[in-house]
């Protein structure tokens, strides 16, 4: 029985083969899929902001909002479940500017800033990014199949593509 589990905004979920993790309609948010092929363990994080230092009260739930805290926390959980971080790789999607045409400057930079923060954090954690689909001005749904490690991207009005 394959479970399909939705990962909401500022959440992360871990799972193992043959489950499927889905982050629906990412805009400037980013979906980060971590996968350890050797155990079939993986996780999908759905972050919305780059840097937790702007937070005034950084609790367990708040840490899931930010690139610099959520990815590390998810990695720690995967390790507790038996994943081997040296065999781990990452795929990354999202970080769009949804109101590109003349949108407010602050909001329009958030997707790009999220993308940079995610790359920096994965580099700090020593996890190679093997595929990415970030930026542009459209939403994306990310499906992460733990059986194969495949990540597919469904963009608005387009056919689903393998990342």
């Amino acid at each position, binding site marked *: 029985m394959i479970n399909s589990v939705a990962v909401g905004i500022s*959440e992360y979920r871990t799972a193992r083969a043959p489950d499927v993790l889905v982050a629906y309609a990412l805009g400037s948010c980013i979906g980060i899929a971590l996968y350890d092929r050797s155990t079939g363990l993986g996780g999908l994080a759905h972050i919305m902001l780059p840097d937790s230092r702007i937070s005034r009260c950084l609790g367990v739930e708040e840490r899931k909002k930010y690139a610099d805290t959520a990815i590390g926390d998810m990695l720690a959980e995967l390790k507790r479940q038996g994943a081997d971080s040296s065999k781990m790789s990452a795929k990354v999607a999202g970080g769009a500017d949804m109101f590109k045409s003349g949108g407010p400057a602050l909001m329009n930079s958030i997707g790009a800033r999220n993308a940079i923060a995610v790359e920096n954090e994965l580099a700090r954690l020593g996890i190679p990014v093997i595929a990415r689909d970030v930026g542009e001005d459209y939403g994306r749904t990310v499906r992460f199949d733990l059986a194969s490690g495949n990540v597919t991207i469904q963009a608005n009005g387009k056919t689903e593509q393998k990342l």
Partner: protein
Amino acid sequence: MLKSYKELNERHVDTIGEIGSIGAGNAASSLSRMLGENVAISVPNVTIDDYSNIIGSLDNPEGSAIAVLIHFEGDIRGIVLFVAAIEDAKKIAGRLSGQYSDEDGALTDIGTSAIMEVGNILASSYLGSITQLTGLNIDISVPYAAIDMMGALLAVPMIEFSVDESKLFLVKEQFYIGNDIVDSQIILFADVPSLAKLMERLGADL
């Protein structure tokens, strides 16, 4: 004084519903003038939910939708976002322009701008009724419009308030135009001090 969305009680929710009713009622009148047709409106449905549940609880988060976003600042600050599924928006566009979609049912440029204009008018008149009602002074930004996945569009204003908040309230309403029922949402995002000020002006300071 209200400190967080988490503290919103039943009376606050009723007041938010009231704000929604008045705003949407005003929006319906503007739409009626624009279309030259009667436009009725349902009683708004107010929900307060966690960010993590909002997108997942949509009927079709990946569905194509139109959104118009307006920033406001002054005595209070926040965002008004009008969102409707494309199929619902087409019911309005069809009344404004004959060539709103091509043979495949895709929106034409004329149809797109007609829908965006409608969204703009609805969002502005919603905001206008709030300022009239409360006497608060606000300046509004130019409207920003986009057509994309509903979930991705809804997330945009959520992100702007996400440092301090993990909950938001949605006010959904239905417009009845002729024989058509048009589902849409006009969402008011305000930071907590602004919301508290709104409540106070409306006599629900608890």
